[in-house]
């Protein structure tokens, strides 16, 4: 009898301890799959980043550090030699060695896998095992930003033997392991008791799938959730005022740009593009429409991205009179332009503000809103004039954005501005050919200066991301995005 009572008490206490060690958070949509190679979806990555690990990761300071990689060197500009941490295993017990890395990357690159994120690592030609813990990654051409690309969630190392089962029963080497998943309802992870980097203090992480932000806010305030992300400006303002909720706004990898087709007859003249830049009051957009949740943009990449020349000053301050004078000089009075955007509440609001600001300098702007896929088809047409896009430098390396937007080989896929300058092509290629940071930094700085002078686009702002959490959660780190929530050293003080 006594023994039973003690057993029950122990069980009760155990449940209580477990409950104290459980972090509950929300994601807005059911992740389509938990196989990081079979998706390009942020909700999937938010989970897979806890379960699997990549070879490298970007630190909160923006530097690249080894995760599964213990050390690395470029043996030549197109061969990256990586030495893996010793003795790491997947949670099924199989070793995460050079052969596992080769198999995982080859699965990602195999066209049969139909990996939506394959383009992130398409520079890789082959992967070769040197010895049990050393692996060579060969790129056909030199590709200096390779480390940053290998830090992307799609490049997580997975145990290929599990095949399609990884979608619903993921197995990795990360700080948390998969427990259960009720579709569209909730998903549970528990701390990996054998984690090579030390067992996390948080014992369980429960992801509840709650699509409506208002519901997430009520849940946070009534204690049903410990942390929520991506709160829209008005809800965020209310939470900032609430006691018992900690709020943070942080700079991520995003930028919102107004692009201009530099070969369109209406926009070919540099003075017209400069006039449009002068006509835009960036701080008004940020204060009035984004409730201050953004920083004004100058260069196309935010300061969080490696090699961003964030010290460059705004060459085109808000000066409507200068804008009018430039337009008159270029003989472009009574200019009529079309702005293409895709369905997105923020972009639609910004487009309307731009319409107003440009009308103040005599430019008649028509806004054409389409769903994303149709918008992309529109950008492929050569008669496009202006376009508005919110872009993420997801590798946090300047190459990802600068090469895509300004290298002539990317016309018209990503270089929608059809911007073709031989000197810029050469600089972007030089930065890919030379893994040395100093060389790359100098080249990217030159590119950013040239682009500012030529105005193939105006960077309007860098949006801030938001977090609201209960003060009981301490020590968590959000690296540039809610997708990269690092809970390895977090604690819950209930």
């Amino acid at each position, binding site marked *: 009898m006594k023994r039973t009572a003690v057993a029950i008490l122990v069980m009760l206490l155990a449940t209580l301890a477990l409950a104290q060690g459980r972090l509950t958070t929300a994601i807005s949509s059911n992740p389509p799959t938990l196989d990081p190679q079979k998706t*390009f979806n942020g909700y999937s990555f938010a989970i897979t980043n806890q379960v699997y690990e990549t070879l490298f990761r970007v630190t909160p300071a923006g530097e690249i550090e080894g995760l599964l990689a213990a050390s690395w060197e470029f043996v030549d500009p197109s061969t990256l030699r990586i030495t893996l941490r010793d003795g790491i295993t997947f949670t099924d017990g199989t070793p995460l060695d050079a052969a596992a890395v080769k198999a995982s990357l080859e699965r990602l690159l195999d066209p049969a896998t139909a990996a939506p994120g394959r*383009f992130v690592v398409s520079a890789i030609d082959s992967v070769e095992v040197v010895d049990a813990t050393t692996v060579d990654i060969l790129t056909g051409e030199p590709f200096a930003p390779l480390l940053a690309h290998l830090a992307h969630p799609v490049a997580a190392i997975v145990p290929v033997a599990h095949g399609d089962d990884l979608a619903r029963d993921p197995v990795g080497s990360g700080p948390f392991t998969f427990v259960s998943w009720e579709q569209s309802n909730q998903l549970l992870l528990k701390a990996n008791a054998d984690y090579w980097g030390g067992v996390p203090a948080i014992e369980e992480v429960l992801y509840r799938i709650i699509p409506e932000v208002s519901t997430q806010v009520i849940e946070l305030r009534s204690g049903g959730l410990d942390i929520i992300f991506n709160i829209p400006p008005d809800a965020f303002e209310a939470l900032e005022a609430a006691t018992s909720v900690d709020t943070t706004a942080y700079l991520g990898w995003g930028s919102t740009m107004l692009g201009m087709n530099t070969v369109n007859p209406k926009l070919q003249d540099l003075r017209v593009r400069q006039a449009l830049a002068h006509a835009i009051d960036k701080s008004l957009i940020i204060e009035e429409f984004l409730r201050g949740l953004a920083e004004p943009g100058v260069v196309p990449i935010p300061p969080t991205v490696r090699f961003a020349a964030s010290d460059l000053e705004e060459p085109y301050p808000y000066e409507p009179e200068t804008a009018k004078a430039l337009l008159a000089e270029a003989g472009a009075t009574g200019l009529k332009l079309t702005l293409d955007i895709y369905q997105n509440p923020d972009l639609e609001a910004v487009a309307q503000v731009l319409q107003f600001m440009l009308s103040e300098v005599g430019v008649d702007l028509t806004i054409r809103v389409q769903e994303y896929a149709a918008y*992309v088809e529109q950008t492929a047409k050569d008669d496009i004039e202006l376009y508005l896009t919110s872009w993420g430098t997801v590798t946090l390396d300047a190459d990802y954005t600068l090469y895509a937007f300004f290298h002539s080989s990317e016309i018209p896929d990503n270089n929608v501005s059809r911007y073709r300058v031989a000197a810029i092509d050469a600089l972007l290629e030089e930065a890919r050919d030379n893994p040395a940071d100093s060389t790359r930094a100098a080249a990217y700085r030159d590119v950013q200066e040239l682009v500012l002078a030529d105005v193939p686009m105006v960077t309007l702002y860098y949006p801030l991301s938001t977090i609201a959490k209960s003060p009981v959660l301490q020590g968590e780190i959000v690296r540039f995005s809610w997708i990269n929530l690092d809970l390895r050293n977090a604690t819950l003080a209930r």
Partner: protein
Amino acid sequence: MTLFIIRRLAALVPVLLGVTLLVFAMLWLAPGDPVLALLGESAQGISRAALEELRRAHGFDRGPVIQYLDYLGGLVRGDLGTSVRSGQPVMQEVLGRFPATLLLAGSAMFVASVLGLTLGVLAAVFRRTVVDHVAVLIALLGVSVPVFWSGLLLMLLFALDLGWLPASGYGTWKHLVLPASAVGFSSAAFIARITRASMIETLRQDYVRTATAKGLGPGAVRLRHALRNALLPVVTVVGLQFGGLLGGAVLTETVFAWPGIGRMLVDAIATRDLPLVQGSVLFIAVLFIIVNLAVDVSYAVLNPKVRYD
């Protein structure tokens, strides 16, 4: 009767064929590329060559007729295909969401029927009194107030202020109370209005006067004689509402984070997940037809004058 049911079930085949064709045509005609829709905004930076390869891998490069016939071929063999987005069998995805949908629809209809019948009968019996006006007002509110607003109010009151119930989620009976009430309230409004009208009509009938003349009490007359006869149009409304709810209550599921079919279908449409859209719509269509059939059959039970043979 049996023949009637068999005939109605046989009519399912052309209806479902039409449904597949319609869904396919709508998704195919919608502007934009299915692979881009699938990847969404997050696919910035992808090259056109990589997109082309993905298109081939998913079979989107084949002509629409071949894609459709291919789908029908699978359907005949009982294969609903696999979801493009999750890579899981469509049947498994749909059936996985169905218990939550059925639970919400069932309990919401229970709330709606009890509330709607009570309000309707009260309004009819106490016609043109305060009771009638209040009942009609409640019904009007139920029809007019959108669930994404009433749902949030319910949450603020019962979860945040009183702390009695969880704000959202799925799992225990406590999770069911708020969404079932929110949906039930709006459905109750329709039921109340139909009940009221039908009840008023029935109370005017000669047999009701006869029953009263026989000396039966007002309760017995109204409930046993009038209500049973007034129920026929009500059953139709309840059936239609229930059939509609089985197709998922998208707004309610979204507000209360309820893992039902409605949300899944909307997500599938947004990402152009054709097999999943087709499979869900087919499933919903079958359910709707079956519920309608059940309503027709129930007429015969409620009203001995109705015969189907």
